[in-house]
C-alpha cells in the first residue's frame, strides 16, 4: 500500500484517479475500514496539504469550511457557532471528543452514510460544496452528493475541497437533533436538521427540513412552504409537518430500529427541531 501527500488539488486528483486509491482526511472512517479489512487500498492519498482544504473562514457572502478541517476546530469558532448553531450541534455529536479532533465534514459526507450527523444540518442550511477534479472545479448543493449508501456522485479523481454556507439573513435559526439509544458514542437512528427564517412579525419566510437515516439518502421534506410561509407555526401546521415527515420515510429495519420506530421518530424530531429553530430565528 502506497501513501502519498499531494501538495496541490491537481496532484491529488491525479493520484485519486488511480485504481484502488482512497482519499484520507481525518481517517476516522478509513482507518477503521482498513483495520477491519473492509477495504484494501493500493494507495492512500492524504489530501490535507491541498491548499484551502484546511480551516474555516468568513467570506464576503458567508462561510468557507475546508473539507478536511477537524470538527473540533469548527466547533471552537465563535462567530460561526453564532451563525449556524444547528450545524455545530450536528458536528459536536459525531463520535467522541477524540474523534472530533480528526473527523471532517468532507469525510462525513463522502462516507455516504444515511446516518451521517453533519449532512442533514448542512443541507437544511442550504450549504454547497466545491468539488475539485482533474480538469475543473464545480459547485453542487450538498444534497446532490450522496446517491445511495456508501456511494457518491463524485467522479473518478474528484474530491471535496470545501463547503460554502451562506451568511444567515436576519431572523434565521437552525437546529439539529438525532435520536440514539444511548446518550453519546452512537449512530443516529434518525437525524433531523431544520432551518427557518422569520420576518419582523415572526412569520416564517423560509423553511427547510432534512432528515437522515430514514431512507437510503438524506431526504429534504417537500411541500412545507405552503403550510408554513407567512405564518407562525401552530398545532395544525406542526401536525402536518409530522405527517409529511412520516410519509417521507423509506427506512430499513435493522439492529438500530424498526421501520415503525424510525417513522415515528422522524415526525417527533422534525417537530422538535422546528420548535428550536423557530425559537432561535425569532431571537436572531
Amino acid at each position: 500500500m502506497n501513501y502519498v501527500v499531494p501538495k496541490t488539488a491537481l496532484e491529488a486528483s491525479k493520484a485519486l484517479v488511480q485504481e484502488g486509491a482512497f482519499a484520507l482526511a481525518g481517517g476516522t472512517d478509513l482507518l477503521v475500514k482498513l483495520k477491519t479489512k473492509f477495504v484494501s487500498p493500493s494507495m492512500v492519498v492524504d489530501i490535507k496539504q491541498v491548499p484551502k482544504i484546511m480551516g474555516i473562514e468568513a467570506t464576503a457572502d458567508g462561510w468557507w469550511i475546508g473539507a478536511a478541517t477537524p470538527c473540533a476546530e469548527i466547533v471552537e469558532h465563535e462567530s460561526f457557532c453564532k451563525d449556524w448553531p444547528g450545524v455545530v450541534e450536528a458536528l459536536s455529536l459525531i463520535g467522541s471528543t477524540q474523534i472530533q479532533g480528526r473527523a471532517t465534514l468532507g469525510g462525513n459526507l463522502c462516507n455516504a452514510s444515511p446516518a451521517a450527523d453533519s449532512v442533514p444540518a448542512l443541507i437544511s442550511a442550504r450549504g454547497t460544496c466545491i468539488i475539485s477534479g482533474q480538469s475543473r472545479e464545480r459547485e453542487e448543493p450538498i444534497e446532490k452528493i450522496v446517491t445511495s449508501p456508501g456511494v457518491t456522485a463524485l467522479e473518478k479523481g474528484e474530491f471535496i475541497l470545501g463547503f460554502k454556507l451562506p451568511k444567515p439573513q436576519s431572523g434565521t435559526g437552525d437546529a439539529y437533533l438525532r435520536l440514539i439509544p444511548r446518550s453519546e458514542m452512537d449512530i443516529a437512528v434518525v437525524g433531523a436538521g431544520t432551518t427557518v427564517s422569520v420576518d419582523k412579525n415572526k412569520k416564517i419566510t423560509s423553511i427547510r427540513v432534512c432528515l437522515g437515516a430514514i431512507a437510503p439518502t438524506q431526504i429534504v421534506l417537500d411541500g412545507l412552504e405552503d403550510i408554513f410561509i407567512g405564518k407562525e407555526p401552530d398545532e395544525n401546521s406542526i401536525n402536518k409537518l409530522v405527517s409529511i415527515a412520516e410519509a417521507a420515510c423509506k427506512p430499513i429495519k435493522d439492529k438500530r430500529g424498526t421501520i415503525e420506530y424510525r417513522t415515528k421518530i422522524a415526525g417527533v424530531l422534525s417537530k422538535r427541531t422546528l420548535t428550536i429553530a423557530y425559537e432561535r430565528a425569532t431571537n436572531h
Partner: protein
Amino acid sequence: MNDMTQTNLERALKIVGSRPARPDGVDKVTGRALFGADKSLPNMLVGRVLRSPYAHAKIISIDTSKAEELKGVKAIVTSTDFEDFPSEFVPNGEMVVNMKDITRNVMAREKALYVGHTVAAVAATSEDIAEQALALIDVTYEVLPHVLEVEDAEKPGAPLLHDDMITIGIEPAPESASNVAKRVEFGFGDVEKGFSEADLIIEREFTTQQVHQGYIEPHACLASVSEDGQAELWCTTQGPFVVRNFCSKLLGFNAAQIRVTASEIGGGFGGKTVVYLEPLALALSRKSCRPVKMEMNRAEVFTSSGPTSGAKIWVKIGVKNNGQITAGDCVLKYQAGAFQGAPVGPGAMCAFAPYDLKNVRAVGYDIVVNRPKVAAYRAPGGPISEYGVESVIDEIAIKIGMDPIDLRLKNAAKEGTIAPYGPKLGPIGMIETLEAAKSHPHYSAPLGPNQARGVASGFWFNIGGETSSSITINEDGTVGLTLGTPDIGGSRASMAMMASEELGVPMELIKPIIGDTNSLGFNFLTGGSRATFSTGTTVVESTREAIEELKKRAALLWEVSLDQVEWFEGHARLISGDEPKTMSLAQIAKQAGKTGGPIMANCSMNVTGAGPSLGTHIVDVEVDEETGQVSIIRYTAIQDAGKAIHPAYVEGQMQGGAVQGIGWALNEEYIYNEKGELENTGFLDYRIPVCSDVPMIDTVIVEVPNPNHPYGVRGVGETPIIPPLAAISNAVSRATNKRFDELPLSPPKVLAKLMHG
C-alpha cells in the same frame, strides 16, 4: 472462627474500614500494568482461529494441506489434536462444566454449533500469514437447521444440537433426545393451597435477552511449551489454577508440567473462568516448539466467548390484602448456548430467596440453542429470575395500595428463615437494607414530570472454596503476601489491609502479589464474591501464624518463655518484667537468621460459611413518551457487605454492578439475523452504558457481620447486578402506567409498548 470475630469486635480497627490507595493503582493509571496481551517472547508466533460461519453444521472434512504449505505457517491444530472425553460433570464455581463439552467448545468436533465456534487454529510468523492460512483451510460443512430461542428449541421436532441429550431430572426419564438438558426444582410447602388462601394473585411472563459481561480486555494468552513438555502459560483469567487444570486435562499434561501466571485483568465478571484460547495456544506451541500468542478481537469476544442466558420466565405470586405473601411459584427457561450448563439452578434457588415464604416452588429448565455456550456472569442466573419476581412484587404493591418497601419488609427473609433452596439462613441484612432504603432521602425526594421511582431487592449466596495464600516477613521488616485469587476488584488492597491490621505495621510496608500456580496450593478462581471472604480468611490465619513465630523469635532473643510475649501494634512486648520491653517486627526480622531462619507462614483450607448478601436499589427514571427513551435520573444502591474492609472498593463493586444492571435493563442484547449470525459484534451496537448514560450511583453500605469471617466479610461483587433490572422496569412501568415484562427497555421496545400496549 468465632473466636477470631470476638477478638476483632473487642478492639478498635485502625486499617480495616479505611480507604488507602490500592497497591496496583499507579501501574494501572500509568499504563505500566501488564494485561493478557502485553507479554511477548523471542521467536514468538501469532495464533489465529478459524471459526464456523454457520449456526449449526456437520463438519464433513477439514483439509489443512494448502495452509500448511504456506511459508511462515508453523502449526495447525484441529479437533484431531485434542483427546475426547466421556461426559463428566465438574463443579466450576457457581456453574457446572462437562469435559466432553469443554473439549468440543474449545474445538468443534462432529458439528459446529454456533457462528463463531472454533474449527481450527493456526500459528504463523505473522498475523497476516496466519490470516492467509485460515483462508486456505478447506472445511466442508453440511449445514443443518438451527434454533435460537428456548420456546422453539423445546418443541418436539426442533433441530437437535446433541442427539444423545436425554433430559436429566424428569422421572421417568424421557425416551427420546431433546434440547432440554435438565429440569431442576426447589421449594417447599403447598403452592396450590397457598394460592387458594390469597386475596390477590398476579401471574406474568417475562423475557430477557442474552447479554455479555462486556469486559474491556479481550481474551488473550501467551503459551510456551518446551521440547521436554514443560509449559508456561501467561493469560488473563479469574483462576490460573482452574486454567491449569482444564488445560492439563484437555492436552494430556500433568499439573506440574504447566505453570500458569495470571496477568492483570481488564474485567472478567465471570466470563474469564473458562478456557478458550489457552488450550489452542498450548497445542500450537507444543506442535511448533515456539511460543504462541493469541488474542481475540472484539467480534470474537462477542461471538465466541460466553455471555449469560436469555430467558423466558413465568412468575405467579399470591398475597393477602395485608401484604402477606401466601405462595410463590415460577418456571424459568434459560438458554444454555450450544452446550448444557445454563445458570438456571442458582436462578431457581435465589428467585424467592429475599423472602420468608411458607409455600414456594421454582422450576428451571436448562435448554441448548445455537448460540455461544454461556459462562458465568456476575451472580449467574440471579438477575434473570429475581427480575421476574421483583417485578410481580411491585405490581402487587400497586394493586393492594402498599408501599413497595413495606410490602418487602412484611415478607423479608431474616435469621432463621428457611431459604427456598433448603438451608436455614444465618444473620442476613434484608430488613436492614430495606430500612436503610426507606429512610434514605432519595426515597422521599420529589419527582419531576414523566418521572417515577422504582425499587427492587436482590439476594446472592456468595461462596467460599479451596484457598491457599502465604506471608513472608522480609529481613528489613517489610512483608510479602502471595495470593492465589486474581485481583478483579481491589482485593490486593483488602488483603494487605487485613494483614496490616493483624500485624500492626503500615499497609505501605506490605506488598501483595498474585502468585503463579507453582507458588501456592490450589486456589479456586476469583468468583462467587469469594476473594475477600476466602483469601481474606487465609491471609488472617497465616498472618496470625506469622505473629506466633515472631513472638517465638522474640522470646528466644529475650530468653523468656513464649507465654511471656504478646503482640501489640507491630511489636513483640514482654508481659512481665520490671520495665516495659518491646521489639519491633523489623528488629525481629533482622535477626531471623540467628533465631531459626526466614519467617513465613501459609494457610491452605477449604473455606466455608460464606454469608449471603442482600441489596435494595432505588432508581428514578424519566420516560420520553414520544421517543420511548428512558433516562436514569437518580440511583441509590444499598447493600449488606457484612464488613467493608475497603469501603471505596465495596462502593465500586456496588456502582459497577448497578451500571451493568442498567445496561442489561436498558439496551444490551444479542441481535441475531435469520441465519443465526450475530449482527451486533461491537460496542457500537452492543450498547453497554457510557458514562453520560448514568448518574453518579449513590451507595449505602449496611454491615450485618458474617460470623464466619474474622472481620465479618460477606462478599459484595455479585448482588448489586441483581436489583437494577426490576428496579428500572418497575420505575418505567410506574411512569407510564403500563406493566413492562420484557428486557431490554430500549427506545423502540418502550415506544411500541406505549403505542400498542
